[in-house]
Each structure stands twice: as C-alpha cells, then as structure tokens.
C-alpha cells in the first residue's frame, strides 16, 4: 500500500487523443494516443518541432482542453470527472502559457499576481505572503510590485506573469516556451528561476523548449514529441545518443553534442554522448591526462 503510494505518478495521461475541427475540412489529429506519467520532483523538458502537439498536450494537464478520448489523472483522479475536479486541476497544475506577458491586465503588478491566488480563495495575510514569495521566486525586484505591468521591460513582464502562476502555489508548474522571444540575458534569468524554483520547492516542473542546449543542461528527463506522438521519453544521455532519429524529426542536437559527435566521428575516443559542459571538461581532462601518461611511458 505504502509502496504503491510513493510510486503513484502525480499526473498521468492515459491514451490521450485530441482532434481539432472534427467534422470540418480542417480536421487535424493533434495528439494521437499519448501516454505519460509525471512524478514528484521531476524537471522535465518537452521538445519537438512546431506543430508537433506540445501546446495541445500541456493544455490538457489543467483541463483547459478536453480530450477527444483518453484520460488525465491528477493523483489518480480523473480531472474531468466533476466540475470541482476540473477546477481543482486549474490550481493544482499551474500552466504558464506561451507569451504569458499578454495576459497581464491589472493596473499594478501586485494586483495582477494576486489574480490567480484570489480566484483560488487565498486572502489577507496569506495573499500578501504568496505574492511576495512568488515575486522573490522569479527574482522580480519588490519595488516593481506597485508599478504598472505595462511599464516593465520584456523580461520583467514575463517574470511577473510567471509569478502570477507560481503565486497560486500549484503542485506542478508547466511552462510553454518560457524563454521564447527573450534576449540571452532574459533567457538565462528565466532558466535560473525555473531551476531554483524546482530546487527550493521540490515540485514537479515541465517546460516546453526549442533550445536543445537548454533542456540538455537543466532537465533530468526529456520528452520528444513528433507528429502528435511522444517519440522519446528518456534521460538526456539516451535522447542525445539517438542522433539520427532526432535529425529525422527535424531537431538539432545541442551545440556541444554536435561538436563532440563531429570529433567522435573523427576518432576522438569518447563513446557516450556529451551534452553538458561539465561532462565535456571532465572527459577531455581525463583524455589529456591519459595521453600524457601514454607519452610519459
């Protein structure tokens, strides 16, 4: 009993299919029999080319989209079973949509961040606490809380919008291309926010990304979507060893892996896929020292 509890996925997707525009000439199968389990504390990267169904998939997690067939189970319970279950899923699964800064509407950042938690029923001192915590979690200077969200810079707007979701204190945080359209510094800040949030709260985080380098560096599990299916669900090491498959799906390797694959093809004696800088440095150091020994002999 206890064992099955600890192994229970926090979110489970069962044979999920979603068809857009059924019965029109625009009928499109966006998800085809997708199965997926997310566990407590994972940091998952979801990649796949445009139109592969990533956004469609994650909009099922909190019940924004209804599956054409299949189930979404939150801690074992179908989120579409009752209206209350769907509403609970909204708050339990915090979904940051793509370009979330376009959802800002209040006259101050504070009020905007408060929108979600208020809908959840959080008030008073508790409300103030979640606002401040969310603000700190996304590294937004507190003095900005009383300015208009429309006066912030692009990166600040994005972080304020993410804070609006974090403030609902969800069990899972899902982000759809959180770094899209930001400059390198903005991207870096968002990624730091995500990894720090996961580390400090121990919550499950899944984010959609276009950048292989990003997912390679921060995730411990990668989902690859291709043509409405989940084509791979594995550790970064395994995913990036399947070079050919990734290329066929129109996906690029992380820059580092790309360079190492090139060198490996030219005879560099490292067999596993290299996708983080730390690992690359360590491997090369080993290699150099063993060469030195070799020549010393």
């Amino acid at each position, binding site marked *: 009993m206890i064992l099955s509890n600890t192994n229970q996925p926090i979110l489970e997707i069962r044979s999920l299919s979603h068809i*857009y*525009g*059924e019965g*029109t*000439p*625009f009928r499109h199968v966006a998800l085809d029999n997708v199965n997926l389990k997310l566990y407590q504390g994972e940091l998952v990267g979801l990649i796949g080319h445009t139109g592969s169904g990533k956004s469609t998939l994650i*909009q099922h997690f*909190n019940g*924004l989209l209804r599956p054409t067939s299949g189930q979404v189970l939150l801690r074992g319970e179908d989120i579409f079973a009752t209206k209350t279950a769907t*509403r609970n899923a*909204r*708050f339990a699964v*915090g*979904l*940051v*949509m793509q370009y*979330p800064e*376009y*959802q*800002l*509407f209040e006259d101050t950042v504070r009020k905007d961040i408060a*929108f*979600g938690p208020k*809908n*959840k029923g959080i008030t008073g001192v508790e409300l103030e606490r979640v606002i401040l915590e969310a603000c700190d979690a996304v590294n937004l200077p507190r003095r900005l809380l009383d300015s208009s969200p*429309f006066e912030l810079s692009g990166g600040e707007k994005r972080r304020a919008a993410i804070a*609006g*979701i974090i403030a*609902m204190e969800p069990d899972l945080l899902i982000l759809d291309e959180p770094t899209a359209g930001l400059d390198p510094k903005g991207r870096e800040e968002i990624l730091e926010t995500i990894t720090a949030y996961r580390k400090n709260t121990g919550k499950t985080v899944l984010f959609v990304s276009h950048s292989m380098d990003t997912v390679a560096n921060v995730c411990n599990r990668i989902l690859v979507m291709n043509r409405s299916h989940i084509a791979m669900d594995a550790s970064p090491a395994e995913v990036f060893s399947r070079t050919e498959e990734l290329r066929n799906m129109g996906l690029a390797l992380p820059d580092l892996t790309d360079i190492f694959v090139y060198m490996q093809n030219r005879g560099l004696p490292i067999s596993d896929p290299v996708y983080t800088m730390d690992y690359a440095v360590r491997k090369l150091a080993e290699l150099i020292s063993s060469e030195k020994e070799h020549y010393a002999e």
Partner: protein
Amino acid sequence: MQNNITLGQYFPMNSPVHRLDARFKLFLTIFFIVTVFFADGLLSYGLVTLVLGGVIAMSKIPFSMILKSLKPLIIIILFTAILNIFYTKGTPLVSFWIFKITYEGIVVAFKMGIRIILLVAGSSLLTYTTSPIMLTDAMEALLSPLKVFKVPVNELAMMMSIALRFIPTLMEETQKIMNAQKARGADFETGSLISRAKALVPILVPLFVSAFRRADDLAMAMESRCYTGGDNRTRLKPLVATGSDFVILVGCILVFSGIIVLGCFGL
C-alpha cells in the same frame, strides 16, 4: 474552438459553384432573393426550390451545413408561420374559442416559412462557397458605380478586407487570453450577471492592448510599403470572368426571370 481558423462560414471545396466569379455569384444571389419574393404559386416555388437544391448539390457543401445555418432561424420561422395561421382571414377550417384556423392562413404560413428558408439557404450558400476576401472584392466591383457620387469605394473595401483579415486573428487571440486567464482560475461561466461582466475585464484589457499593437504594426507595415490608397491599385488576384461564367450568368438570369414571370401570374 473550431471556428477560429475559419472566418464565418467559408467552406472550401472544389466545385463549380466555388469557382464561379464572385461578382456573378453576388449578383445572382441578389437576383435569387428578388426571385424568391416574386414567387407565388406552387409552380414558381417548386422551381426556385429545385434550382437552389441543384446548386447546393453541385456545391458539394454537406446538406447538414445548410441545415445548420437554418437552425438559429427556426424560432422566427415558426413564429411567423403561427402568426400567419391565426391572423389570415378566409374560409375557416377549425375554430375554437377566439382562434380560427383558415385555409388561406395555412397556405400563407407555409409560403412564408418556405420563403424564409429559401432566402437563408440561398444567402448562406454564397458565404459557404466564397471566401470573405473574394466577397469583399465582389462588393467593391458591384459598388464601383457609386464612385461617381464620390463614395470612397476602394477605401471602404480596403477597410473591410483588413477587418476581415483580423477577425480570425482577434478571435484566436481572445481564445488564447481566455485560456491564459482560465489557467489562473478565472471563471466566465458561473455567477451573477455583474460578476460575469466583471470577469470580462481580464480578457478585454489584454485584447485591446494587443489590437492596438497590431493596428500600429499594420499601419507601419503599410506605410513602409508606400500605401497611399486611391483608385489605381492593382490586385494580386484580379477577378477574371471566364466564358463559362458568362454562360452560367446568362442562364441563371433567364431561369430567374422566367420564374418571376410565372410568379407574377400567380403560378
């Protein structure tokens, strides 16, 4: 969800009805409406229905789509029919209390019902088979005589095509914003009228912000490509009538005129 990729009703298919020159189609639809008003007797009604049925079959539009366009009008059709049944004077068939159902009443009610159905089915066929952009072009062409009276027909048409172009975009945008706010627990479906109206603020503010931004972008893009408006603009896809378009035009005019003549004789 579905309708945000299609605007309104356009149902793309490859059929002779779709291919017919949009100007002719618009003109023939107007002529068709006139014909329906002239139809009177069984013969003329029968012919109009037959013609429309034939064109619908040719258009490859599923009959269920046509029925769908009639659905919102069921109440109006029933309402006019019932009014006509009770308020037309003539030979009573049944009578109870203050109500009298007359033979003439039933005939008039029936005719009115059929007339509304024909009008709606005919005009929705136009919007089902013609893309909004083509329709705008056709309207521009048919309105162009008004230029004599200094009506800015080109500008009106440009405004209309821009509006048409942005309706799907804005609908998509609305959907996205709604979803984003729903993800924050916004509730648009329950509550009193006032609380529901309040729930619209989180949608309307971002929607206006984005509409203005898009308008700015478009104005900039048009200006940087030297748009100045006016009459002498050419088009990417000019409407070109082919020989068969003219044959269809003349054929339909003849058929419709025939029906009008029949209608005038009460047939």
